[in-house]
């Protein structure tokens, strides 16, 4: 039952209604949608884009294009620049120019790091309980003494920094 209904849809060839209307209007030739045409893009690695930048020329620009068909030495500098601007949006210099965006990014990063720091301070003050007793001064010094007695890391580590003869840290 459902399968036969699908077949009837296929029979009627249901496509998008707007395209259908346009197809009927132009005797079978569908107007190309904007998104199907080649686009202009300013890219460093594509020096000659597929289309010119200005698509619909004004009367003045069309006259200039006609003049371009003759000898180019007849063109003034301004006309050459105008022809360039018809074809391209930005020059390479304009395209490659840096922005000041990095300042915004850096500022934002530092700001949010600061906010995080404030949150951490609040947490330490209001939320966390006391630190374990093994962090007290006496415990840590007894712990370090035991490490030195055991000769922990004698080559480059903690025991290498202790002077056993003078019983103090090496200078």
């Amino acid at each position: 039952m459902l399968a036969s209904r699908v077949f009837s849809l296929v029979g009627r060839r249901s496509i998008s209604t707007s395209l259908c209307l346009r197809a009927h209007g132009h005797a079978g030739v569908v107007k190309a949608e904007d998104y199907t045409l080649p686009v202009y893009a300013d890219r460093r690695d594509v020096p000659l884009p597929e289309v010119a930048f200005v698509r619909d020329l004004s009367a003045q620009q069309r006259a200039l294009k006609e003049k371009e068909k003759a000898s180019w030495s007849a063109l003034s500098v301004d006309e050459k620049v105008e022809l360039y601007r018809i074809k391209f949006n930005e020059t390479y210099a304009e395209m490659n120019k840096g922005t000041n965006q990095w300042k915004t990014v850096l500022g934002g990063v530092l700001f949010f790091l600061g906010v995080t720091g404030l949150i951490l301070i609040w947490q330490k003050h209001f939320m966390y309980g006391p630190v374990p007793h093994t962090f007290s001064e006496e415990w840590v010094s007894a712990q370090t003494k035991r490490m030195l007695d055991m000769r922990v890391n004698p080559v480059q580590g903690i025991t290498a920094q202790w002077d056993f003869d003078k019983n103090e840290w090496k200078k």
Partner: protein
Amino acid sequence: MRGLLARRMKFHLLGAFLVSVGSAALYKFGVAEPRKRAYEDFYRNYDPMKDFEAMKAAGVLESAPPN
């Protein structure tokens, strides 16, 4: 407009070579060689028995008490 990729590639190939060789050399002479020398110096006149007696006297060995 010519040789854009070639110029960029030359610059970056040279740079990559220098950076990698440089960082390897830096590590070798900043970390590896000093470490080797430290171990040499430590073990040149090392007496394990003396070390053992010191640890025993300090009382950190469970099976070898101080007295």
